[in-house]
C-alpha cells in the first residue's frame, strides 16, 4: 500500500492507480460479478411471493440457531450440558434446531428439484446446495458421537464397522472423541458456512429461479410483441 500526499481542495485528482495492483483487480472483479444492487437488492420478482420460496431462508435461520447454541455448548463444556437445567435446555435447542434445519432444507431441496432450479445458468447454485447437504450430514452425525455419554459410545461403536468396511476408519475414527469433536465444532461447520455463503452469493448473482409457467408466458409475450422492448418477465426478473 502506498501513501498519498494531502492535496489542496481544488487540486486535480491523483492519476488512477496502476491496474497491476491485485487489490484493484479483486475489487473490480467483485463489483463486476456482484454489483451492490444485486448483492443487496431491495425487491424480488413477483413469483417469489409463494410459501415454497421461504425454505431456503428458513434453513439459514435454523443454521444461525445451530451455530449460536453450539458455540454456547462449546464454551460451557460437557459437564454443563449434561448436569445443569440450563445446559439441558441449550443442548435441546441445539438438537432441535438441527432437526428443523434438515426438515426445511429437505423441503427446500424438493421445491428446487421439481422447479429444476439449475435452469438459466444456475448449475453452480444447484451444485453448491447439493454439496452443502452432503457436508451437513456428517456435520450432524459427528455431533451424535460428541455427546460424551453412553448414547455416543453406542452410536460410535455401531458406526465404526461401517466406516472400517469402506476403508476410512483409519483416518476418520468415530471412537476417537477428540477427533470427532474437532470435526463437529470446527472443520465441518466451517465447510457448511462457507458453502452456504457461496450458495447465497450465487443466488444473488443469478437471481431466484422462476417457475416454469412464468418462463413460458414470458416467451409467449416476447413472441407476440417482439418490438415492445423488455417484457414484464425480464423486468421483474431483473429485480433479483
Amino acid at each position, binding site marked *: 500500500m502506498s501513501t498519498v500526499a494531502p492535496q489542496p481542495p481544488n487540486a486535480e485528482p491523483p492519476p488512477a492507480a496502476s491496474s497491476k495492483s491485485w487489490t484493484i483487480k479483486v475489487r473490480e472483479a467483485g463489483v463486476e460479478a456482484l454489483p451492490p444492487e444485486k448483492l443487496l437488492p431491495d425487491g424480488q420478482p413477483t413469483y417469489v*411471493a*409463494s*410459501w*415454497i420460496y421461504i425454505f431456503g431462508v428458513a434453513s439459514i435461520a435454523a443454521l444461525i440457531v445451530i451455530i449460536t447454541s453450539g458455540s454456547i455448548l462449546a464454551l460451557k463444556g460437557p459437564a454443563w450440558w449434561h448436569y445443569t437445567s440450563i445446559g439441558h435446555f441449550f443442548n435441546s435447542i441445539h438438537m432441535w434446531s438441527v*432437526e428443523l434445519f434438515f*426438515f426445511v432444507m429437505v*423441503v427446500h431441496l*424438493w421445491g428446487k428439484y421439481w422447479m429444476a432450479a439449475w435452469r438459466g445458468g444456475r448449475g453452480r447454485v444447484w451444485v453448491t446446495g447439493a454439496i452443502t447437504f452432503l457436508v451437513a450430514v456428517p456435520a450432524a452425525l459427528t455431533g451424535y458421537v460428541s455427546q460424551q455419554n453412553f448414547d455416543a459410545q453406542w452410536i460410535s461403536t455401531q458406526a465404526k464397522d461401517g466406516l472400517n468396511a469402506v476403508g476410512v476408519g483409519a483416518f476418520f475414527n468415530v471412537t476417537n472423541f477428540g477427533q470427532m469433536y474437532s470435526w463437529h465444532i470446527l472443520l465441518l461447520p466451517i465447510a457448511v458456512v462457507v458453502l452456504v455463503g457461496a450458495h447465497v452469493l450465487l443466488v444473488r448473482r443469478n437471481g431466484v429461479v422462476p417457475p416454469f409457467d412464468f418462463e413460458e408466458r414470458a416467451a409467449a409475450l416476447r413472441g407476440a410483441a417482439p418490438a415492445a422492448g423488455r417484457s*414484464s418477465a425480464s423486468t421483474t426478473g431483473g429485480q433479483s
Partner: protein
Amino acid sequence: MSAVDVMGAVFNLNHPAHTVDWEFIHLSVANVVVIGLMLIVFVLALVLPFPGASKRRGGAS
C-alpha cells in the same frame, strides 16, 4: 414430579423402537412420521396462498 417424569409417563420409551419394514426398507416410526410431516408441509407450501401475493402480482406486472 419433574417434566422428565411427566413426559416419561406420556411416552413409554422402555422398549425397542417400533419400525416399519417393507422389503429392504427398514425405518423407525419416528422417521416415518418426520418424512410424512415434510411431505405435508411441502404440499401446503405449494397450495396455500402467500399473504399479499395477488396484490404484488397485480401491481408489478
